[in-house]
């Protein structure tokens, strides 16, 4: 296996299609090996590249462990799941799809809260009155903690939320949220508003290389070759 380069690509949905389109436009045809529902693939004409189809978050995980050399996944997932991200992976290329903003959003009725500083100021009063910290619902526990620390907000607790996060303030399980949004429609429907300085990350699909993977034995050379193709203008 040392003579090959392993690239992981998303295994379903829009991300899979757009990845495939991106590669094809640059002369690289991704195709599955065997059954259409299988998870093994190849790039036509490249015997020394293995394609594996994985979920976007599994790709982030395997980039960290070095089981794969390269992968296509959202920057949000990579930054959330890999502590000390710059030592573990290298962001090679933004791919221009899979856009999602990770944002801090609060109930629209909080007329007194427009910035992260407002949030911290209010959090002190909230804690005095409600005898608890503000609850932030999110699946981005690490990103949230880092961002809130950077913005000097301390008076909060994270409530892990793995779906329908926007509904948590109305449902009462959280007071505010950190979530991804593309159009802002869902936020609005749930009477939430993004804080003025609440943009945590402008995420999109990225091609990422693992620093933990084994790069000797040919993989580095194959990477150069494939990168020159991927960096070329689309046909």
């Amino acid at each position: 296996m040392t003579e090959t380069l392993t690239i992981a690509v998303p295994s379903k949905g829009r991300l899979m299609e757009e990845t495939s389109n991106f590669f094809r436009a640059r002369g690289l045809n991704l195709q599955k090996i065997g059954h259409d529902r299988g998870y093994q693939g190849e790039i036509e004409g490249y015997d020394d590249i293995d394609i594996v189809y994985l979920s976007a978050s599994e790709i982030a995980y395997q980039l960290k462990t070095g089981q794969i050399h390269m992968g296509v996944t959202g920057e949000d997932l990579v930054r959330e799941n890999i502590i000390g991200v710059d030592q573990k992976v290298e962001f090679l290329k933004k791919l221009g799809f899979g856009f999602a903003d990770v944002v801090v959003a609060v109930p629209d009725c909080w007329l007194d809260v427009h910035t992260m500083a407002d949030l911290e100021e209010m959090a002190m009063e909230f804690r005095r009155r409600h005898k608890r910290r503000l609850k932030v619902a999110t699946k981005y526990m690490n990103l949230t903690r880092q961002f809130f620390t950077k913005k000097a907000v301390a008076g909060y607790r994270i409530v892990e939320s793995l779906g329908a996060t926007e509904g948590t303030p109305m449902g009462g399980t959280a007071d505010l949220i950190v979530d991804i949004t593309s159009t802002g429609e869902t936020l609005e429907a749930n009477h939430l508003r993004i804080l003025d300085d609440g943009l945590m990350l402008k995420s999109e699909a990225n091609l990422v290389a693992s620093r933990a993977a084994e790069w000797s034995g040919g993989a580095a050379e194959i990477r150069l070759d494939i990168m020159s193709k991927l960096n070329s203008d689309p046909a």
Partner: protein
Amino acid sequence: MNDMSASAIPDLNTMKTLEDKVSKTFEKAGFEHIDPAIMQPADVYLQQIGEAIRGRTYVFSDINGDELCLRPDLTVPAARVYIERCEEQSAEKARYYYSGPTFRYPYEEPTSSDEEGEQSAPAHGNTREFRQAGIEIFGKEEKEKAEVEVLKLTLEALKEVGTTDFNIRMGDLGLFFALLDAIDMPDRWRKRLAENFWRHEDFQNILTQLSEPHNLEYENELRSLLKKIINESPKEAEQHVGEYLAAKAIPLIGARTLEEITNQLIAKAADLTSEPLEPEKIDIIKKYLEISAPPKAVGARLQDLAETAGLDLTKALDRYQKRIELLSSADIDLGNAEFTAEFGRKFEYYTGFVFQIEKHNMGPEGHIAGGGRYDHLLHSLGLPKNIPAIGAAINLDRLAALIDGDVL
């Protein structure tokens, strides 16, 4: 386990001897041995210290979904033992000692302002587990006396294992809060400064903010709402805010009431019209925080500062002097001691006297023990009122590494 270098694990015999000698010292002084649980509910730490704790503590869920953690210190677990006993019988006063492992995640997350505790940082960069031995005094006692006693006993325990060559660093958060109380400013500003005291950079930013004219980048409609409510009674203001929301078809969702939102808006409106905090007042705060001097010289310097600024710090100064006298009569050598006003700003639960014992000439890197007063912790952990509390802990791993077994 690949992060555990051999040097991070002290020799078992050295550790055992250290632990025994230190424990015996505490026992002889009349402290009761307790052995708090290694696994603690994560909730307690998250409520008390906040999410920052996740960045350095092992937090995990059990199959029930309850969040637990490996204790990152022994003070909170000891406080919980006290609280449990209070519920069974009215414990009132308690003196505990303990020794055992604590756990910290070795990777340090980059932060805007470092919240890492001074008292119990790992001895080596990669150490996940390190042992602490310590004491805690809970309940009403003469404050300064208890403080001196804790420091003295810590020093005795160190002497017992042959360490005598050290410096003592001291601070007093009570002095800072007394200073803040004495300076004339709106109460909400004082609260903001007090609550951000532990976060150095944020504290500086707030000082800067308060020194500048206030400006809110609100859209016009909201701005006129603020102008409308600024001179109104809370009830009327609340009504206006309610009408504003209704006109915009914004529903009131979540735990915060209309009253809470209105109160914050009134505070913002007040900020808009308040004069900035005068440069002289900011200067006093900065001058105080710059103080670093032998403990005996600090009283006079504070007196000067208070007189120049026309502040009444008598009570706080009396307490400080009383502690100095007690330290002297307890035969604690203050020749190698330094008072630093900034010291103690890194661990959120301290409220008064704080100290750290450092191996001579090694600075903060050589710290082997530390402690302080934390009068608010028990209340915030669930007791109905504040209970005076003071304690100290010795980092046994660091101690073992420093003495390297050769004195035992």
